[in-house]
């Protein structure tokens, strides 16, 4: 034993290096190649190979080979019986010649003998076969001693762990890829559902056909003009699509009344923001502002809106956007009791009501969007598609928007919050 101690020290040096190699997040292939070198060099083994086990294919696929030659198979199949025996054996050395009862050693007997592969170690990590070690004869020509077999197992465990880690990593990567796809699918499904819902809301209101869908689109245009992130724009659009969801519970005859509705009917209709909020609050949305947009889309900066008569900064930003989109669509589409107003009138209305009903910075963003399209600075003609070409080409529209933009100040000059608190 004393004369073996330098050997032992040399082997332990290799073991320590192998542990380090596996711990370092190096290239996996290089780690495996280095591992095989360390193992061969630790004990003076002439040839060998490290394989990774594929559970699905039941194959030992060579990751690194030394001195096994071109004829040695790079992929060795394992049968159910072999698998069971390897698992029962655990991470321990198997003498290839003594294990001839197993199909694995019978099938590959010629290959093993030709390259003098004497030992096989199934790399069993946590009751799972992750790979295998194939080891040839020692340079001394001597038999493997029991302590050498122990060193082989210790090093095999390191290699097995490296393979196992690699497998886990690959699995995580695959899962995250699947998750991303799944998430994208869900988002698409959600967006489709939202649009389908908007269409359903609009069906109830035959005179304002397509209102929710258009409000969704105007809301999206405003959010885009505000340079929000794609996700925020999507959230804003959703808020627009669903803002009138509460109308689903309002009697059809009130919504479709071809006249100005009376006070009682008006009170009934005015419940729709709160009802909408309650409906949307019960749904788990990817965008948190959606229920708030429904609840407060009829609020005005000057506190004269409903249901809560909120002032300026008390109103959620998203609700201000939807309010502008909603009002713009109401002005630019025919209603049962009112024909749509000319574009220049609408621009004038927006300008005059900026700071009263609408947030000035939003009016600016909206008008800037229209103007950019009129000047052909945008890729797609989204306003034209929503409003019609003729409407958009109205005489003097461009100068009207330009002068309104010059006049508007981006920040709200109102101090409604103070007024509200004083009341």
């Amino acid at each position, binding site marked *: 034993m004393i004369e073996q101690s330098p050997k032992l020290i040399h082997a332990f040096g290799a073991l320590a290096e192998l542990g380090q190699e596996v711990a370092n997040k190096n290239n996996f292939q290089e780690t495996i190649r280095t591992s095989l070198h360390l193992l061969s*060099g630790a004990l003076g083994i002439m040839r060998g190979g490290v394989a990774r086990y594929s559970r699905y294919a039941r194959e030992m696929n060579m990751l690194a080979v030394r001195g096994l030659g071109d004829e040695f198979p790079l992929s060795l199949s394992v049968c159910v019986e072999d698998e069971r025996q390897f698992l029962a054996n655990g991470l321990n050395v198997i003498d290839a010649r003594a294990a001839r009862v197993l199909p694995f050693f019978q099938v590959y007997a010629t290959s093993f003998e030709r390259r003098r592969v004497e030992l096989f170690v199934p790399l069993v990590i946590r009751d799972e076969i992750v790979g295998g070690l194939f080891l040839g004869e020692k340079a001394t020509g001597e038999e493997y001693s029991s302590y050498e077999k122990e060193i082989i197992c210790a090093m095999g465990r390191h290699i097995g762990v490296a393979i196992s880690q690699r497998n886990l990593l690959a699995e995580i990567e695959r899962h995250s890829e699947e998750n991303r796809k799944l998430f994208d699918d869900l988002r698409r499904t959600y967006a489709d559902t939202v649009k389908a819902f908007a269409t359903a809301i609009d069906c109830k209101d035959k005179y304002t056909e397509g209102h929710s869908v258009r409000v969704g689109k105007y809301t999206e245009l405003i959010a885009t003009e505000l340079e929000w992130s794609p996700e925020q724009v999507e959230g804003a659009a959703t808020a627009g699509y669903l803002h009138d969801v509460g109308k689903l519970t309002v009697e059809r005859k009130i919504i479709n009344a071809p006249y100005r509705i009376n006070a009682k009917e008006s009170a009934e209709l005015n419940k729709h923001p709160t009802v909408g909020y309650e409906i949307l609050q019960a749904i788990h949305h990817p965008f948190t502002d959606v229920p708030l947009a429904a609840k407060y889309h009829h609020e005005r900066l000057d506190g004269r809106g409903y249901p809560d008569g909120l002032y300026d900064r008390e109103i959620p930003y998203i609700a201000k956007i939807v309010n502008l989109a909603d009002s713009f669509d109401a002005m630019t589409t025919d209603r049962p009791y009112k024909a749509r107003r000319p574009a220049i009138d609408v621009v004038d209305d927006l300008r005059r009501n900026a700071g009263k009903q609408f947030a000035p910075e939003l009016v600016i963003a909206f008008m800037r969007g229209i103007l950019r399209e009129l000047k052909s600075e945008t890729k797609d003609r989204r306003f034209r598609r929503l409003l019609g070409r003729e409407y958009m080409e109205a005489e003097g529209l461009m100068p009207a928007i330009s002068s309104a933009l010059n006049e508007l100040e981006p920040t709200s000059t109102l101090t409604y919050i103070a007024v509200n608190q004083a009341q």
Partner: protein
Amino acid sequence: MTENTSFDPDPAVGTPSAQSAIVIAGDYLNKLTGEKIERECRDKLNAGAREIVVDFSETEIINSIGISILLGVIDDAQNAGAKVVFSDLKPESAELFDMLGLTKHVTIQ
């Protein structure tokens, strides 16, 4: 097929005979880069060398990777029917080679 690497035989050192080739082990031996030495030897064997002389004059210590690479050189040479000579080996290295059985396959100079 001569790779322009630092362990190429130095022309100044010269070749002992037409059938003999010298490779300098250097300190590349102990890393994965040492595999270049194996390729170098294989090239020389393919070119008809009957003897590979591995020069250890620039090699201080040899670790397990180095041993493995030298075993690869020995294996390739034996398959080609050529012999391997180790020259200028440090005593500690010679002891290690003896212990691991490398000396059974090579001539030490």
